[in-house]
């Protein structure tokens, strides 16, 4: 059952990352990887929220491990940062690291704290 839930969540999360990345990159003509930033931020917000709500294990598998796990990505974040550095746009590479981590951690903490307070 767990395998089915993770599969379902990931089969929605991964294509949604692709579509979001394309939609965002089409609208922002910038070397900054806004698409990956957007999906990682959204996934952190959602996972922080459902952790704060302390959902049951099946929901955590479907939404947390499956959907949020497949929606967010560390490999593309890392690859895009390395590419920015190889293109000698070191400022963008550094900005990508700092903004992704600050926004991702901030969103997780904010969502967790807010939902935890509301459901406690």
């Amino acid at each position, binding site marked *: 059952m767990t395998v089915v839930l993770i599969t379902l969540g*990931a*089969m929605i999360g991964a294509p949604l990352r*692709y579509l979001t990345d394309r939609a965002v990159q089409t609208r922002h003509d910038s070397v900054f990887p806004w*698409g990956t930033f957007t999906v990682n931020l959204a996934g952190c917000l959602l996972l*922080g929220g459902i952790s704060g709500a302390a959902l049951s294990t099946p929901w955590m598998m479907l939404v947390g491990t499956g959907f949020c796990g497949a929606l967010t990505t*560390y490999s593309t974040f*890392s690859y895009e940062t390395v590419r920015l550095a190889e293109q000698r746009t070191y400022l963008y590479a550094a900005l990508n690291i700092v903004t992704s981590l600050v926004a*991702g951690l901030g969103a997780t903490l904010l969502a967790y704290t807010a939902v935890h307070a509301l459901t406690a």
Partner: protein
Amino acid sequence: MTGELTTSGRAERGEPVDSDIDLHEPAHRTELARSHGAILVVIALGGALGALARYGLARLWPTPPGGFPWATFLTNVLGCFLIGVLMVLVTELWSAHPLVRPFLGVGVLGGFTTFSTYANDIRALLTPGTIVTAFVYFGLTLLCALSATLIAVRFTRWAHAATRRPGRGRA
């Protein structure tokens, strides 16, 4: 140094860094329109495989409460190494089938690695007793992930060049 990025035109033109597609090239832009369904299907399948592999690793190597999340750490660093190898292969050295990059890069590796669990693990470790673990996990993942990608990219280019010049490969 000059030849380092010449095989990848996108890099030279300073265009958006998008591992999936180059939206400035009309042929790439129409990729989704032409094979909309196929690309989304292979990404969904790859994403499921990647996520299940991540879950399997987490089951094999469970993190005790307050402990260092080794499974997620290993998942992210390994995925970052593999995307470096894959992207050099499919964008610089091979002309791979159009579905290879979406399946392996966007699907499998994107579904395997996770940014949300990484952030949520750090959040859970931000307690007085485990704050050091939180900071070590935070910094070590970032350092090892970026290093893994960089090493993979350089190594793959080097290995390709070395095999293309068998007589001088050891030089």
